[in-house]
């Protein structure tokens, strides 16, 4: 791992991070002693079985959960302050578009709340609709779009206010494989074009390997990091890279990491 001081290129930094939920069955250690540095422009995937704390970690970065131990900084700030500074856009597992708003209206939602002018709202909506390949769909209502298109609209919504960080919590988990492949490819293009830092939670090994520059393997009870793999794949990745030897080797290492962290349960 890298040194522990925050450098200019560091976007997310966790040191000795722990998060314990108090439940009626006693404390649950969702995260324990998590150390991680994410640099600007990284595409970081968090992979692990359910209960390994990958979503909790992402939510802690977004200040939706609050760590009980250790330190966590986002853009050098406390997560709460980073949120107020609009440091990140968050994409949930479900698109979560408001059914009473059109696609354009949904993308405007964060812009309205953040107080952008009407003219700028319109301009930004057009821009992000183009980014996710949904030009001309602004006037449609969510139910008129397929699941994959809805999820693209929700990515557009997260991009609308130009945050440097994009946090995605299993965004394609509910979609079928074919749609997922295409969206993965598009996400990589988007990432290349916008140079965002992306945190991406998944439980698909091929998805994690295909997308990431850094793969964080996690294991449950307590939720912790068992391996951090720096991908050796080039940044330009056609879909058929998944048949390459390098890809298969990285996937193998991820699988080993998952198995090691999980005992005999896999």
């Amino acid at each position, binding site marked *: 791992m890298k040194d522990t001081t925050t450098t200019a290129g560091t976007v997310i930094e966790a040191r000795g991070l722990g998060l314990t939920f108090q439940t009626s069955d006693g404390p649950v250690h969702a995260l324990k002693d998590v150390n991680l540095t994410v640099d600007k422009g990284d595409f970081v995937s968090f992979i692990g079985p359910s209960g390994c704390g990958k979503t909790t970690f992402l*939510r802690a970065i977004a200040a939706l959960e609050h760590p009980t131990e250790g330190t966590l900084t986002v853009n050098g700030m406390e997560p709460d302050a980073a949120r107020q500074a609009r440091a990140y856009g968050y994409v949930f597992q*479900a698109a*979560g578009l408001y059914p009473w*708003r059109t696609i354009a209206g949904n993308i405007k939602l964060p812009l309205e709340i953040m107080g952008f002018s009407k003219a700028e709202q319109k301009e930004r909506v057009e821009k992000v609709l183009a980014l996710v390949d949904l030009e001309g769909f602004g006037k449609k209502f969510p139910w008129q779009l397929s699941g994959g298109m809805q999820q693209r609209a929700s990515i557009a919504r997260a991009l609308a206010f130009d945050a440097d960080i994009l946090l995605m919590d299993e965004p394609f988990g509910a979609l079928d494989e074919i749609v997922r492949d295409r969206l993965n490819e598009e996400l990589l293009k988007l990432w290349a074009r916008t140079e965002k830092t992306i945190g991406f939670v998944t439980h698909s090994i091929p998805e994690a390997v295909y997308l990431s520059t850094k793969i964080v393997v996690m294991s449950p009870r307590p939720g912790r990091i068992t391996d951090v793999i720096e991908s050796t794949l080039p940044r330009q990745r056609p879909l058929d890279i998944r048949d390459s030897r390098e890809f298969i080797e990285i996937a193998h290492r991820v699988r080993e990491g998952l198995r090691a962290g999980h005992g005999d349960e896999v």
Partner: protein
Amino acid sequence: MRSVLPILAVLGAIVALWYAATVWLNSQWTYDQAARAGVEVSFGEVVADTLNQDRPVLPAPHQVAEGLWDGLAGQKVTSKRSLVYHGWVTLSATLVGFAIGTGLGILLAVGIVHNRAMDMSVMPWAIASQTIPILAIAPMVIVVFASVGLTGLIPKAIISAYLSFFPVVVGMVKGLRSPDAMQLDLLKTYNAGGWDTLRKLRLPASMPYLFASLKVSVAASLVGAIVGELPAGATSGLGARLLSGSYYGQTIQIWAALFAAAILAAGLVMIIGGIERGTLRRMGMAR
């Protein structure tokens, strides 16, 4: 069109049952009259008489229809015998009461959803308020308001609001809480405050719940307004019409007023249904 036949069949069955009940309930009077006059009556004569008495125990459908038609169309609308006049008096109190009740209900629901203290304290009172018979409250409201010089529409509207706020509170609390954790988290990531959350998420999400509540509450408003006309001897309104009918044994008048109230309620519910469809379609929530 397919649905017309079953509706007509049910309606026909109700009317037939009603006629049968009319003959049965009113026959005692006919037999008593015949016995007093010392004559025998055939079954045919009994039927003919029971369907056309002046003060029947149960008026026949055609008598009620006649009374209703006479009340609605047979009088000048300013006449004290016009159901349009009385209906308007009741309707105006209903609408004012409905507006107050809906406004109060929404405000209470917003308070309950946003404030834990209100959540714990208001709901039990709201429920308790509805367990007290409105007939017990109505005279007190009338008396209290009369003592400060308010009579007529306002006290009736208050009684009407008393009945109508409750369905709105219950429906709106449910509706305002209908957004799931993910939708609330999403707004949190935008650093949205309570006001934005209410305006952009909770209120629009609660619309289907609101309209369901409004349909119940508008009918309750009408009941409240009518009940408000019963005590203190009001001289106008459908309630007053019911009351004077029962004083003088004018059963046909009572039934005509009842049907006028039912038609009014059905009309109000239909208007709300129409607004609901229009609103939800404009919001893209009706498929």
